[in-house]
C-alpha cells in the first residue's frame, strides 16, 4: 500500500515518517516509534488506554489515523517525566496514592489527567471523576486514582499535599 509522509512532534522531538493512510495513530506510536506506553484495550474508543495528548487535547489514538496527526504535537506517557528523570507530579501521585495495580490503563489515565489539570488545575472529586470517565480501569475502583490526581493538583499548584490514604 502507498505510504504518506507525515511530520509531527512527539514528546518534543520532530518526527518524519512514512505511514500507510490507514495506519492508526496508536500503531504508529507503538510499532514505528517504539512508544509502547499507550496501550490498546478495546478498539472502540471506550477504554482510553491509548490516550495521548494531541495539540492540547486528549485523544484516543486507537480511533484516529496517524496521518490525521500530521503537523501536530503529540505527548505520550514517555514524555511526562522531566529530562533528568524526575517523575511528573501525576506519576508521583499515582505511586503515592496507590492509583494503579496492573498498570495497563495507567499511561492513558495519567496523560488524560495531565490535560484535565491543565484545564482545571484544582478539580473537585466529582470533576475528576467526570474528567476521567473516558478512561476505564479494571483494578483500582478509581478511588485512589482520584486521590492521585488531587495529590498532583495540590503539588502542581504549590498547595499542601493531601494526607496519604488511610
Amino acid at each position: 500500500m502507498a505510504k504518506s509522509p507525515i511530520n509531527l512532534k512527539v514528546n518534543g522531538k520532530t518526527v518524519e515518517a512514512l505511514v500507510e493512510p490507514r495506519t492508526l495513530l496508536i500503531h504508529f506510536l507503538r510499532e514505528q516509534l517504539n512508544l509502547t506506553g499507550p496501550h490498546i484495550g478495546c478498539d472502540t474508543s471506550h477504554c482510553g488506554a491509548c490516550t495521548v495528548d494531541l495539540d492540547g487535547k486528549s485523544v484516543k489514538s486507537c480511533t484516529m489515523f496517524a496521518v490525521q496527526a500530521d503537523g501536530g504535537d503529540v505527548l505520550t506517557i514517555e514524555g511526562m517525566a522531566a529530562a533528568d528523570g524526575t517523575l511528573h507530579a501525576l506519576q508521583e501521585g499515582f505511586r503515592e496514592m496507590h492509583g494503579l495495580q496492573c498498570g495497563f490503563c495507567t499511561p492513558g489515565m495519567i496523560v488524560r489527567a495531565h490535560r484535565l489539570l491543565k484545564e482545571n488545575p484544582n478539580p473537585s472529586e466529582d470533576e475528576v471523576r467526570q474528567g476521567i470517565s473516558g478512561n476505564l480501569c479494571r483494578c483500582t475502583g478509581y478511588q485512589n486514582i482520584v486521590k492521585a490526581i488531587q495529590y498532583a493538583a495540590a503539588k502542581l499548584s504549590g498547595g499542601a499535599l493531601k494526607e496519604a490514604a488511610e
Partner: protein
Amino acid sequence: MNDQTPSKEERTERLQGMGCKRKRVEDVRFVQGKGNYVDDMKLPGMLYGDFTRSPYAHARIKKIDGTAAKALPGVIAVLTAADLKPLSLHYMPTLAGDVAAVLAEEKVLYQNQEVAFIIADDRYVAADAADLVEVEYEELPVLVDPFKAMAPDAPVLREDIKDKTDGAHGKRKHYNHVFSWEIGDREATDAAFKKAEVSIKELISYQRVHPCPLETCQCVASFDKIKGELTVWGTFQAPHVIRTVASLISKIPEHKIHVIAPDIGGGFGNKVGAYPGYICAIVASIVTGQPVKWVEDRIENLSTTSFARDYHMTTEIAATKDGKVTGLRVHVLADHGAFDACADPSKWPAGFFNIVTGSYDFPVAHCAVDGVYTNKAPGGVAYRCSFRVTEAAYCIERAMDILAQKLNMDPAELRMKNLVRKEQFPYQSALGWEYDSGDYHTALQKAMDTVSYKKLREEQKQEQEAFKKGKTRELMGIGVAFFTEIVGAGPSRNCDILGIAMFDSAEIRIHPTGAVTARMGTKSQGQGHETTYAQIIATELGLPADDIMIEEGNTDTAPYGLGTYGSRSTPTAGAATAMAARKIKAKAQMIAADLLEVSEYDLEWEIDRFRVKGNPERFKTMKELAWAAYNRVPKGLEPGLEAVNYYDPPNMTYPFGAYICVVDVDVDTGVTKVRRFYALDDCGTRINPMIIEGQVHGGLTEAFGIAMGQEIRYDEMGNVTGPTFMDYFMPTAVETPKWETDWTVTPSPHHPIGAKGVGESPNVGGVPCFANAVNDAFKFLGSTHIAMPHDHWRTWTVADKLGLHG
C-alpha cells in the same frame, strides 16, 4: 550498643516488612509507560496471526476456501483444522477433562468460533485476509437455553462425543450432558425439609459474565528449528501449567519449552486456560520458523475466551419458625457452552461450589450440579473468585434474604442467629469443608455498628411511608451480605490440575552483600507481588525489602508453581516464601553461633540479627551472616545461603467479611444510586494494608459491574449480542461508588504467617450485597427475587410490573 545504634523502631521501619504500607516497586516502571506487556514485544521477522471466525452458532462446515486470502500480498499461510489434524492438534485438552476445538473441523458450535488462522507479515494484512477466507456453512438448529439442553429432541451438539456414556466426571445422562456432581446427605436433608416449619424455594440465576481484563489475551510464539526449542511469551496466569500442557500436546520436551509471562494487564481468571490462539501461534511458528504474534481484539475476548458463571441454582432452605436454619438443598444447572473448559481443579467439576452453606451452621445439606452443553462459547472460569465461590455466595446470601422476608425477620438478625459461632472453629461444614478460623459475629456486629444499621432501618421505614403517600419516587434499599471464601487451593490430597498437585513454591537466594533474589511459581497480574513477597522475606530475614528482588513468570528460572488465581498466591506461594526464608534463617543461625562462638541455642532473633541471650551487644546481623555464608562457613556446612520450598497447604484458608450497602432506586427511571458501601474484610494477617485496600476497592468495583449491569447475552439464534464496551457494562469513575473499607484480623491457624488471601473476597461478598440492596428496596411492595443484573431497564421493568407507574 552505643548512641549510633539505630533504635528497634528505626531498624524495623527500615525493613519495610509485613504490616506496613510499602509503596509498590512495580509502579516505577508502570507510571512511566515502561511496563513490558506481551504486545509490546517485537522480534526480528515477527509475523502476525488472526482468525476467521464463524458467523453462526451452530452450523456444518461444507467447505473452506483460503485461495483468495493466500493470494493477498503479505499472507504467508492459512491454517485450518485439516492442517492441524495430522498433528492431532485440531483439538486440545481442557483443564476440565474435556477437549476443545482449536480450529473447527466439521462443525462450528458457537458464534465467533475459530475456523481458520491466517499468518501474515503485517497485522493489518492478517485482518484483511481473515475476511477473504470463504467458508460455506449449512446452518443447524441452535441450542441456547440450558434448560432445554437435555430435552429428548434437543439438537446434538458434540458429535465427537455423542455416544460416550461416560464423561470426565462419571455417567452422562444425555448427549448434551457434561457431568453430574453431588455432595452431602440427601436423605437427611430431605428429612429436614419434611419436618421443616418454614421453607423457601427459589430459582436463583447468576448470569453469564466475562472477566474482561483491560489487556486481552495474547502471545508471541517463537520456535528455534536448530535447537528444537520453543519460547512462548503470553498472558498466562499459570505459566508452568501452560508449559506442561504445551509439552504434552506438542510432544516438544518440557525443558525445551520456555514459557514467559511478562507484565500482565489484569487477569481476573481470564488468563488461566489455554486458547486456540496460543496453539495456532505455536503451530504457525513451527511451520514458518519465524516468531508469530497473536493478539485478540475486544470482541474476540468478550465472545470467545472464557465466560464466567451461567449458573442456575434452584435453592431451598428449611428453617424453624423463629429463624434457625435446619437444612439446605441446592440443584444447579450449569451452562458450560460448547466445550467444558472450566478452570477448576480437575476433580472438582463444580469448583468449590459446596461452600454454598456459606457462613451459617446448617446441620444438613445436599447439593447437586448438572453441567450441560449449549451453543455458546466455552469457559466457566473463576472471575475474580475462587472456583465457583461467588456463585455459591450469591446463592446462599440471596436465599437467606428470601428466608428473612418469609419469616418477616430482619436479614441481619437472621444472619446473626445462624452464623457459625467463634467456638465452633475449626468448623466442619455439612458439605465437607473444614473452615479453619473465624469470628463472624464480631465482624457483623462491627459492620452494623459502623453504619448505624438500626437507624438506617428506621429511615427506610419512613421513606417507605413517604413513598406510599406519593411524597417521593425513590425506594431505599439496604443490602446485607456475610460471606465466607474458600481459597488457596490447595491441599494436594484433593486438588490437582491435570494430575499436577496444587502446591506452590518459592526460591530465595541471598547474595554475599545481603541483597536477595527470590522467585515464585505464582504470577502477578496487578496484585503487587513484587512488593508484598519482599515484605514477607524482609520480616522473616531482617533484610530490607528494597534489597529484595522478586521475579515471577519465567518457567526457566522460577520454581514450578500452579500460578495465580483463586486468591491462592498468599496462601500457597506466600507460605512457601516464609518457609524458605525460615530454612535460610536456620542456616544463618548456625553460622552466627560459629562466629560468636556460642551454641545455637544461646542465640535469639531480634528484627535483623541474631544476638546472644543475655548479652545483646554481641550479635551478627543477617547482612553480616550473608557475607559469612560465602566467606567463612563453619566446618561441615555447605557455603552459600539459599533455599527452596514447595508448600503443600494442610487446608484451604477461609477469608470472610461483612458488607452493607445502601441504595436509592428511582422507580421512574430505574436508576439505582449507591449511597453508601461499607466493606469489612478479615483476611487474617495483613501483609500490606495499602495493597489490601486497593484489592478491595477493585473487587468491589467488579462486583458492582456484575450486579448492576454486566451480562453476555445471546439471542435465540445464538448471536452473542453486544460483546463490546458499547454494550458490556464497564463501570467508569462516574458510576462507581465510593468505598468504605474496614477489617478484623483472625489469623489462619495453619498458615505460617497467618495470612488468608484477599483479592477476590470483595467480588464474592460484593455481588450479593448489591443484589440484596436492590431486592430490599422493592420487597415491602411484595417482590421476592429480582434477577441480576440490576440495570436501569430491568429495574424499571420490575417497578412497572409492580404497578408503580400508574
